[in-house]
């Protein structure tokens, strides 16, 4: 498999009236063709901003991509002109957003909204594009698809709207689909429907996918690789089996410990991560997790405050070079 997307040293900041927000502070990752990457993080971790940046969708001002490269099929997306980028967005890379109610236009019919990209990117005429749109709606499981093209978003339920969003995302057979919390606004039974649908369509279209979420459970079932973000930086990344089964970063460990499990009775107390998420208006000199890290406290590590730990292969990785983390300590050994 070859590398489809290569992000290097991405830095995104927002210059607001309340000060500079250091949203993404040096993020690098690769994505192979057909691979599913799960990006996990809490609000403010930079997970959405980094994916918006690679789509060229950072509102500017106040936002600014300070540095970095995003290489997609040999081209650096960050240097493309707006009209060149427009040819890629929606065709090569498509995006599904969290809230299908606010991301669909309420005054246009579903048909108009799906056929828009078909006409633009595929050069279809009205009747061709309507036929294709109906096929897409049918594929994502919307009954009576052709007639429903003339319905407006409010005539669909939340789960159905998210299906419409998926149909729109898939309309031009993209090579990469970015899904930003696509099931967060949905109930669990509907979430299960959507996840099954996306899994099945992903195989059918052989797409690569980036699935952004705060729910570790959701990505455990669909992602090949997991990337854990905190404070605009990658804390840990590796195959989902490695990250869940052999987590090495104190933050990942803390997150997993703070989650109750459906499949075990919850007698013991949840381990909690103390403190609050960081204020992104201060650029931390060292590790962003240092103020909340119990490993740092336990080992009394001073360098966590002043020096950023590099993202390096975990110690004793058992031959898996792709399992990387950014921490001065080794929680398996208990030493720095």
């Amino acid at each position, binding site marked *: 498999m070859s590398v489809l997307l290569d992000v290097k040293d991405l830095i995104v900041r927002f210059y607001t009236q309340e000060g500079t927000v250091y949203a993404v502070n040096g993020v690098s990752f690769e994505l192979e063709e057909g691979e599913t990457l799960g990006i996990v993080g809490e609000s403010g971790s930079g997970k959405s901003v980094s994916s918006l940046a690679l789509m060229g969708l950072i509102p500017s001002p106040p936002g600014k991509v300070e540095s970095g490269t995003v290489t997609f099929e040999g081209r650096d997306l960050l240097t493309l002109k707006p009209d060149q980028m427009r040819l890629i967005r929606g065709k090569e890379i498509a995006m599904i957003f969290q809230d299908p109610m606010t991301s669909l236009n309420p005054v246009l019919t579903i048909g108009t909204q799906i056929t828009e990209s078909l006409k633009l990117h595929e050069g279809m005429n009205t009747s061709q594009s309507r036929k294709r749109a109906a096929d897409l709606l049918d594929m994502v499981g919307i009954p009576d698809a052709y007639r429903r093209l003339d319905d407006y978003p409010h005539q669909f339920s939340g789960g159905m709207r998210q299906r419409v969003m998926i149909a729109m995302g898939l309309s031009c057979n993209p090579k990469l689909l970015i899904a930003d919390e696509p099931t967060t606004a949905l109930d669990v039974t509907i979430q299960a429907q959507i996840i099954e649908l996306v899994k099945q369509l992903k195989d059918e279209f052989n797409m690569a996918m980036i699935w952004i979420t705060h729910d570790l459970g959701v990505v455990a*079932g669909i992602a090949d690789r997991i990337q854990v973000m905190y404070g605009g930086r990658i804390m840990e990344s590796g195959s989902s089996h490695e990250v869940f089964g052999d987590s090495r970063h104190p933050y990942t460990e803390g997150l997993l410990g703070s989650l*109750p499990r459906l499949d075990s009775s*919850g007698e013991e107390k949840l381990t909690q991560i103390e403190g*609050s998420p960081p204020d992104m208006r201060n650029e931390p000199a060292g590790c962003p997790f240092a103020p909340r890290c119990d490993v740092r406290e336990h080992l009394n590590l001073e360098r966590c405050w002043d020096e950023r730990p590099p993202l390096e292969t975990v110690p004793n990785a058992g031959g898996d070079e792709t399992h990387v983390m950014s921490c001065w300590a080794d929680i398996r050994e208990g030493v720095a």
Partner: protein
Amino acid sequence: MSSQAMAVETRKNLDPNDVILEVTDLKKHFPISAGIVFQRQVGAVRAVDGVSFQVIRGETLGLVGESGCGKSTTGRTILQLYRPTEGSVRFEGQELSTMSGNDLRQMRRRMQIIFQDPFASLNPRMTVGSIVSEPLQIHRIYSNKQERQQYVEALMEKVGLNPYFINRYPHEFSGGQRQRIGIARALALEPSFIVADEPISALDVSIQAQVVNLMEELQDELGLTYLFIAHDLSMVRHICDRVAVMYLGKIVELGPVDEVYDNPQHPYTQALLSAVPVPDPQVEENRQRIIIAGDLPSPASPPTGCNFNTRCPVRFDLCFEEPDPPLIEVRPDHYVSCHRVT
């Protein structure tokens, strides 16, 4: 703090099977009206449609279901924030549904609520101190201002807030801290029963555990009883002793939490539990999901027969002919309402 200590003291002498709350055939229908000049009722949203259960003193009862199933309305109707359309709510031996005015206000000292959204449920123009002490003022407790301030500071400390911040406004706090303010406000009158209406669903994952641990510590310390309304089924298993599963205004399954999770009997409970993702790729690879098709029907026009018959994978003729059966005890303390289970 003396009466709080007393509350714990009296609790020790009580029969552990003491029922603190008994809800019988509770209904809450919201009218749908039509007409511009002459308003007339053309239908009703049957948000809660005949719910019965008991809450035992000191336990945590979970109320779970998808959005629109009536779980929040049930919680609010119990507290008489909505007046019930039909049915009875007995709290500490007194009937609430016929109570009003000052009597009801006095009962509110014993039962409180924690809301879902810590951003919307705190008045942005009041300081933390005035938010937490407002219930004390309404009920004329601590006429001495200094004593009241001391009590509020002690409460803040109890919920893990620095009393130094007593004069700050809600916007100066993070989501988790705001939820702590909401909890302090609920505790101010030393209630015995708290309805927690999705108290953690607006919070970040790492903060959820903090709030849940705090709620559990306070329960142990103060002998609180919780009705924990949630859609996060993993958290419900962790925090609750018993769980009631709601669908379209009715309870379809009720029982001890491990029993219901390990042996779900109603097809809806089975589907709901199988839909919850587990943060473990090895478990996820081998899991069989029951995907139920379609959406929740509108509670304004529920299906005839069993409520779940539009989505049920094991439905048969009877499910369309007969309304859903009453809750039947299938195992000790484990109740199910399903035509398949009789």
